[in-house]
């Protein structure tokens, strides 16, 4: 039996997972998302990544970004390394793509703040 905490929502259910006849039996979940999380976590654990990248703007030196989906857990440090090389030179909006198809995962890294909107306030 394997125990884990579901990270899908703030409830954070403590899941107990057992394999019986090749099927997973999940207990402790308050909703069905806990079951798919448990199966995914055992077979191929994935996480999203939230971090920042450098900008050329002295008023707002960092832009917050995130993956628009989940990537394999072991890819997190590799993605952090690729993002260290990025420098933003334009006043991007929320959702602007920073990196496409990272490490062949099909997942993109997108901006989670609008430099254009924030700069309009800062310059006021």
């Amino acid at each position, binding site marked *: 039996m394997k125990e884990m905490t579901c990270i899908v929502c703030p409830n*954070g259910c403590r899941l107990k997972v057992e394999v019986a006849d090749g099927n997973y039996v999940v207990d402790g979940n308050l909703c069905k998302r806990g079951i798919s999380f448990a199966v995914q976590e055992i077979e191929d654990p994935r*996480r*999203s990544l*939230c971090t920042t990248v450098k900008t050329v703007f002295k008023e707002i030196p960092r832009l*917050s970004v995130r993956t628009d989906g989940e990537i394999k857990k072991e890819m997190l440090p590799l993605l952090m390394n690729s993002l260290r090389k990025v420098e933003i030179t334009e006043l991007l909006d*929320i959702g602007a793509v920073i990196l496409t198809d990272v490490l062949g995962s099909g997942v993109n890294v997108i901006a*989670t703040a609008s430099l254009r909107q924030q700069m309009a306030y*800062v310059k006021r």
Partner: protein
Amino acid sequence: MSYECDVLVIGAGPAGLAAAVAAYDTGARVEIIEREDRPGGILKQCIHDGFGVIRFGEKLSGPEYAARYIDMVEKRHIRIRTKTFVTHMEKKDGFFFTQLVSRTGIEMIKSRSVILAAGCRERTGRQIFIQGSRPAGILTAGTAQYFVNMKGYLPVKRCVILGSGDIGLIMARRLTLEGASVEGVYEIKPEPSGLPRNIAQCLEDFEIPLHLSHTVMRVNGENRVESVEVAQVDAAFQPINGTERVIPCDGLVLSVGLIPENELAESIGIEIDRSTNGPVVDQSLMTSVDGFFSCGNALHVNDLVDYVSESAEIAGRNAALKSGVKRELSRIKKSENFAYLVPQLVDMKRIEEKMIFYFRPGKSAGKGTLRIFGDGREIMKQVFKRLNPAEMERIEIEKDTLEHLNGEIRFDLTTEG
């Protein structure tokens, strides 16, 4: 210069923005005051995701959640006065006179209502009495978060985190991803104070140990932190002899609790609830001073921004309504095992379609049963699968259930395990 509005909102974080939108949509002329150079409040630096699951059905990052509300405010052309501070407030002839200082100088704004949405601040090392000198490298989790996420600086290379609050857990992961080493998280209580999912995804994912019933005894170092001394504590939180351990590090990050920001509320004589450190309010989130409302983390510290927005909308909507009728308030009674219950007051004459309560249990428990009595009769019963002080609970009571009561409401919580 002086000018007028119906509702003055203090703070342009998630609470202030949502309150302003709700007040505007109810028909009020609204102004927002913000001391920083842009709206968004603490969400600007909360770059991690998990915000908005309840409100928007999506896992947003903090800046994205804030932007949703900034867009709503901009669409309504509600003015946000940035880099503006409140220096004084008084109530005269039923109006609030708020003195502001900004680049344009000193101004006075006259308003019918005020919504205090100033959020909360972090408890610091001084407030938890750590021994030792005051070298560089001791910082709150929020300050560490500001340096890393807003400025792009790494303030520590190898650190210890004291306290297992959510921001501390989030920063353990963040500092690790940015290349710092987090030796461990130390929590004086026998249970973590952050959400279970943050223990899992911020500590367990990165193999960062969590030491419960442990605390930091002393910080060593003259100009810069050189080491900290930790020890195990007993049930009375007293250090156990022989368990001391010195950990070489260059930083101590504190995540030891949040305190609602209410200096302004206290300055005009608002009653504060000692269990929340926020104002005592009725169901419209009006404080003990007529026309003065509180919401978000200034009212009580929330785990989820979704509930900050919800309380802000209640305050915003009610602050916009004109009412000359005197309130008839009665105090809600509760059993001993609540850490807190908000609102604390009820005006039976003014129940909206439902009344929303937020509470935390005093102690961690398994199953809990909440029974609510009105005029001595049970009017509602709700079972909670697991109760934990780290997780705020929310309940609704429908108007039909409440409207025939005289005003005696009692909350009774029984817990197992």
